[in-house]
Every structure is written in structure tokens, then in C-alpha cells.
């Protein structure tokens, strides 16, 4: 942003200081993520930039940690990835279904006790995870679901639904209810109206809520730490164990894959948001 030519010198200086501060903050935000890339291709076992890497010598780089991640004999990453994907998949489906239903109900102007119910529905998002972890552990232990996939999936549905409820209610807030009435007056059943009219219009909100729920589940470690047994290890659990015990470059290879995954999620979330705004006719 260019300054007008008549700006006084001291404000010019201040403006450049401001831009410098902003640049530093942006570097602080994004740079740590980029440390991981080069080190995951390192040839050494140490997590520092070797002399060879600093000289960009090809000998300093290798794919051995990626090979180790995929084919390593002792490595739990295969099982962890399978579990993580499965748990995230089912908990996302669960969250999206009951979350969307609840959001549709909440957006109705007939809904009684709206404030109180909304507060309960989004409480898992506000309450610190450690407390959620303890509470959910007590419940799962009581009903015998601790250390089972079902238990973890249910726990992740609890943590994921608030995001679905929030995004879908936000999408529904700009929703023109006269079109559902139009559909009903043309003889459509409520279910049919929902599937053919409402759902296609709120779909971007539903999907972006689902993305949030997926990421929440895929990245969740606090609650899983309480619930998981040996068979239910997930990627975050393995990373947690690895980071606590010894930081091996294999973890960085996994981390690189996760960063790529989150970039994809970010792009789809951003595209969805724009589509949703277009559909709702919001031009900012």
C-alpha cells in the first residue's frame, strides 16, 4: 500500500516500522512449518542442518526417513494411519449427521430454550480438552468402551459436532425460508424438501463443518491419550510418543505429510467458503 506523496517523514518511518513488524510476525507464524521440510529429507539421524545440507550437497539429502515411515519394520505408522483415517471417517459422518439435524432444528424460529440448548451443544468446544478427556474417559470406562474404536469414535463425535452446528447454523442464518414453504406448498414432504431444497443450499456449510470435524478428529490427542489402548494407536498418539521419547527424522517425514494434508484441507475449506458466500449472495 503506497503512501500519498505528501506524507510527513516521521509517518513514513512509522509506516515502514509497521510493515517490518508485520513481516516479522508473518515469518514467526509460517516459518516454523518450513523447518520441517528440509530436515525430513536429511541423510543424518540428527535433527540439525548438517554441513552438507548447508552446502546443498545432494549427499546430505535422502529419502530414507520416508522409506522408514512406509516400510520400516518396527514402525507403527501403517496401523496408526489406518486407525486415524477410520476413526476420523466415522466420527465425521456421525458429527455431520446429528450436527446438521440439530442445526436445522436450532435455526427454526419455533425452537424453545434456544440459548441454553446452543450453550450445551457447543460446550465441548469451550471446555478445556483435558476436562473433556477426563469426563469422557469416566463415561467410556463405565460403559466398557475404553480402549475400543467405538469409544474413540464416539468421543470424537462429541468434540466434532460443535463445529458442524456452528458452521451450519451460520449458513442457515442467511437462508431464505420462503423457498422451503414454496416447496411444501407444491406438495413436497418435509424430508423431500430438506433433501432437494435445503440441503443443496447449505451443503457448503455442512461440508466445511465436516472438514472441521475431520481435522479435529485426525489431530486429536488429549482425549485419545486417555482412551486408547495398544490396538487403537493413532497418528497423533504415535507422534506424541515419538516427540516425548526421541525426536527421530521419521516423525518429520510424517509431519511433512500432515502439512501437505492440511494444505489440501485449507484449500478446500477456502473454496467452500467462497462458494457458500456466493450462494448466499454475500459479496464482500
Amino acid at each position, binding site marked *: 500500500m503506497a503512501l500519498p506523496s505528501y506524507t510527513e517523514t516521521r509517518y513514513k518511518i512509522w509506516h515502514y516500522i*509497521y510493515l517490518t513488524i508485520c513481516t516479522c510476525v508473518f515469518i514467526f*507464524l509460517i516459518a*516454523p512449518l518450513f523447518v520441517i521440510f528440509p530436515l525430513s529429507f536429511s541423510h543424518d539421524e540428527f535433527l540439525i542442518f548438517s554441513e552438507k545440507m548447508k552446502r546443498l550437497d545432494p549427499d546430505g539429502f535422502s529419502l530414507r526417513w520416508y522409506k522408514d515411515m512406509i516400510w520400516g519394520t518396527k514402525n507403527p505408522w501403517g496401523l496408526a494411519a489406518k486407525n486415524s483415517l477410520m476413526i476420523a471417517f466415522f466420527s465425521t459422518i456421525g458429527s455431520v449427521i446429528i450436527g446438521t439435524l440439530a442445526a436445522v432444528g436450532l435455526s427454526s424460529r419455533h*425452537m424453545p430454550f434456544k440459548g441454553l440448548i446452543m450453550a450445551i*451443544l457447543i460446550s465441548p468446544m469451550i471446555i478445556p480438552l483435558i*476436562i473433556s478427556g477426563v469426563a*469422557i474417559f*469416566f463415561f467410556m470406562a463405565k460403559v466398557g468402551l475404553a480402549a475400543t474404536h467405538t469409544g474413540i469414535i464416539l468421543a470424537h463425535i462429541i468434540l466434532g459436532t460443535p463445529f458442524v452446528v456452528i458452521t451450519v447454523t451460520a449458513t442457515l442464518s442467511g437462508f431464505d425460508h420462503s423457498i422451503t414453504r414454496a416447496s411444501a406448498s407444491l406438495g413436497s414432504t418435509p424430508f423431500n424438501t430438506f433433501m432437494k431444497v435445503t440441503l443443496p443450499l447449505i451443503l457448503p456449510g455442512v461440508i466445511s463443518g465436516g472438514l472441521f470435524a475431520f481435522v479435529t478428529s485426525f489431530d486429536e490427542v488429549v482425549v485419545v491419550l486417555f482412551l486408547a489402548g495398544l490396538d487403537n494407536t493413532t497418528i497423533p498418539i504415535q507422534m506424541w510418543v515419538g516427540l516425548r521419547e526421541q525426536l527421530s527424522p521419521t516423525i518429520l517425514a510424517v*509431519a511433512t505429510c500432515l502439512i501437505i494434508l492440511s494444505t489440501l484441507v485449507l484449500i478446500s475449506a*477456502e473454496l467452500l467458503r467462497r462458494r457458500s458466500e456466493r450462494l448466499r449472495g454475500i459479496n464482500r
Partner: protein
Amino acid sequence: MNLKTEQILTTDGVPLSISLKKAERKNKIKAFLLVAPLLLFLLITYISPIGEMFTRSIDDRMITNMLPKTFKAMENWDGQELPPEEVYASFLSDYKVLVENKTQGKLGQRLNKEKNGFNSILKKLKRKMKKFEDGNYKEQIISVHKRFADVTYWQAMKRTAPPYTIGKYLKAVDMYEDQNGDIVQVEEKRRVYKTLWIRTLEVAFFVTIFCFFMGYPIAHLLATIPVKYSNLLMICVLLPFWTSLLVRTASWMILLQQQGLVNDFIVMIGLVGDENRPQMMYNKVGTYVAMTQILLPFMVLPLYSVMKTVSPSMMRAGKSLGGTPFVSFWKIYFPLTISGVGAGSLLVFILAVGYYITPELVGGASGTLISNNIAYHMKQTLDWSFASAMGLMLLFGVLAIYWLYNKLVGVDNIKLG
């Protein structure tokens, strides 16, 4: 004049108002039924276990159930002088049952917490009581150890009678109930939990401040530059936001280690010598740096969404009326963005207060927070009732902040992206 308002009837002959009410009720039920599955699910799997945490945290029924006859007999005892024969007799019969079930050890441990020296005399009683004769138990028990003739021991036992206790909550703030039933602080060098609470608040507070001072300028930049640039820069905020917490913590562990890039850099610019590289991880520094970066997007996003709504003509008006850029910023722009500041600070503070992962990994001993202690008691000491008590205190604090914020600003203003 005898004008009576004629009721409007529907085609079925039912008054319209009743028919409308019926339809409204139907709609209400319909809306509620849509919410019901999630509401029920959360109430059963989430809200009620939090309630269970509360009963668990005050539960002291174990000992009440162990000495039923004793406590019954103690009801008639004034608690001043040595208890009557009846109490001694019923205590002995209770204790015999416990020894048969081999659970007398738990009683000893619990009573020892109430009064030191209880465990050893109970063990002695266990050995001697086989030779007891019928009748006159008071004398026989006292003959086992003279502490059984000390009234304070019986008073201590009586204090454990109620099925509920606030002992765990007192422990969480470094207090306890002494032998006279007064609530006192533990000695100064053993006050661990108070330090922990203060440290948690301190870290959350400063992380919020840091996030504010770093987040405000970049949110302002994002909101004021042309869209094509701001979309690109927004990625710098959103990518960390979507990236796994553990990945971000791992990257800080690499950067902050002693041979890490940050240390390399300060050695290179000659701030410190190569031989005395400072320790930046496994202490508070690590916790502060990593948590600030991780929570910064939660400050920037609400700020950005508020700043987007501030029209640039406001600032121009301020300047054209003679305000310097600083004055017009402070008097016009900042007050307009205050709701964003509030929302961002609330989010960051609430998240920081309950943070577990990052302090555990980079915090070391001096950088861990209350959540780490809760997890420690859940997993290591298995003192679940104490963990529940601390968890509920934390929860109460968070809800209080949330409630206060809702009163002052309104929670609806929080938007992400």
C-alpha cells in the same frame, strides 16, 4: 351496547387462536425433535460424566462404609473426652470384618492422612487382637498402644465420618483441615498447587498479551491491503491454523533445541558465545514461544473479521478533521475494533488456560500448567478424585470468564474466518 367479539373459526369450527397454538406447538416439537438426538447424546456421554466428576471429587464414602457401626456408636459421643466403651467395641468389630476381607490396609492409609501415626497402631492392633478376651474392650485396646487413649485420634476418626468431603478442593489450593477442623494453609515450601495455578494464569495472560500485540498489526494489514494480496497473506495465518498441533510443536522443538536454528542465529550475530548457548526449551521460554505462535491465529481471525467491517472513510474523516494518524487511530479505529480484541483475547486466554500438549512437550518442569497436573494425577498417581476436583475448578474458572465476557460483549461476535 352489547358488542361481543366474535371468535374467528377455522373451517373445522375450531377457534383460530386454538388451532394456531396447536400448529405452533407442533412446530416446536418438530424443531425440538431435530435437536434431541445430539442433545441427548451430549447429555449422556458428556454432561453427565462432568457431573460425575463432581460427585467423585467430594466422595468420601469409602471409609464411611468401612466403619458403619463405629460411626453409629460415635453419634452419641460428645467428641470431647475419650469415647465410651460402646465406640471401642463397635470399632473392634468393624475392624475385624475389614481384616477378614483384607481391606484394613486402606483404612490405615486413609486414617493416617487424617492423623499421623494411625497406620502403625492399627497394624499393632491387628496383631494383638487375636488374643483379646470378651468384654471390656476399651481397656484391652488401650493396652495395645497408648495412642488409643489419646482423644485426638478418635476425633480424627470422627472427622472422616461424613460421606462427603471438600478435602480434595482444599488440597488443590494448598490447604487442609487440621485436627481441630480449622482450614489452614500447608507450610510454605510445600505449596505446590498455588504456584501451579498462578503460573497457569500468568502464562495464559502473557500469551494473550503477546498474541494481541502481534495479532493486531497483521490483522490490520490483512484488512486494509487489496484483496489479492490479503488472500495470499491470509494463508500464512490459516495454514498454521489448520496444521496439526503436534506438527507445530515438533517444529518448535527443532528450532529451539540447543543446536537449533534459533540458537545458531543468536550465536551467529554474536549475542552469546558458541559454548554457552542458552536453554530455550524444557522451560517457560519454550512454553511461551510455542503457545504464542500456536494460538496467534485465534487472535488474528476474530480481529480480522471485525476490522473488515470498519470503513476506511472513518479514518479519512478523522484525519480531515485535523487528527494526526496516531490520534485518529487511537480515538476512532481502535474503539471500533474493541469487540474483535475482546473476542480474540477471550479465545486465546480460554485455550491457553487449559493447554496441555505443548507445555507437556516443551515446558519441562518449570513450564507445565494445571492441565499437565490433572493428567499426571489421572495417569500416574491414579488419584482420580483429586484430578476431578482440579478439573472442575479449571472448568469453573473458564465458564466464569466466558460468562463475564458474554455479559460485557456478547459471545455471538466470535467468528472464525
